[in-house]
């Protein structure tokens, strides 16, 4: 990648980030849309979890990651410390990959 493309990518990425936070801040959104905006992270986190757990190279693929996520779900429900919530699925997934 050459410098001009790196520059364009940096500029574009920053335009999106600041565009949402700073430029659109100037407009007063309709109350209904304001409510919707507050829900954006819910939709995007759910979509990211789905892609990162059930998809590989743009194809649906159910593997050890699903087991890792289910373990996490149980630990989250039990309100255990965050370090444990993370470590148990990581170790499980790593071990399952070693075995396969």
């Amino acid at each position, binding site marked *: 990648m050459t410098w001009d493309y790196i520059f364009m990518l940096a500029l574009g990425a920053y335009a999106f980030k600041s565009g949402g936070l700073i430029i659109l801040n100037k407009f007063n959104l309709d109350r209904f849309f304001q409510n919707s905006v507050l829900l954006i992270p819910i939709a995007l986190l759910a979509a990211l979890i789905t892609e990162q757990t059930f998809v590989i190279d743009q*194809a649906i693929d159910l593997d050890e990651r699903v087991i890792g996520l289910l373990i*996490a779900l149980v630990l989250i429900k039990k309100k255990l410390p965050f370090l444990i919530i993370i470590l148990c699925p990581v170790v499980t997934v790593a071990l399952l990959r070693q075995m396969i």
Partner: protein
Amino acid sequence: MFAFVRRYVRDEIIMTALILGSAIGIFGIAFGVLSVNTGLTTLQTQCMSIFVFTGASQIAAVSIISTGGSQTTALIAALILAMRNGLYGLRLIPIITGSLPKRLLASQLIIDESTGMASAQVDQKDSFRAFWLGGVSVFIFWNLGTLLGSLIGASVDDPKNLGLDIVFPVTFLALLKPQLTSIGRISIALIASFIALVTTPFLPLGIPILLAALAVLLPVFFPSFKYFKDNL
């Protein structure tokens, strides 16, 4: 000294920021290695991590070039992936307040992790703190990882062998859970997941996530559905 350490370990926001940061640092190493092996210099690689600072876009851009794609294809693919940060910016308007320079600086830190951490907090002050701690931690670790990887340049163990890729969906799940406070919100999360899952095989990387965001408009279109009515 131990009381000091204990206080930090008990602080969920700091712990989340540190754990997420460390995992991202390791992927940063992998990115640095890939980038210099693709022909970028250490300086170019580092400038990307500082000024582009959105991991999925950077990895996509470099991967496309490493497999023989053109620079234009790489740029477009990376920009599509970066678009969702604009949506995050909208959500963060009530959280990131302050002077314009402060907000311009905060803009650079708007990514999945910082927004996820901010939106998971109930209290406005905690949201502000979670955004900055999450953003700064990821920024530092991602850049340190990038530097290390681009300097080593040789192949390192794939972080996936260590199961580290699962850190992200698990963290996002932990951040999503406290936000699922009503049936309306749960339906939005499920519909968003569904949109992402069914469109992923057909659409370019990044677009399914943007389409999934449309799920937040459901209460606008179906205001009479009883679970979308109040206190969503």
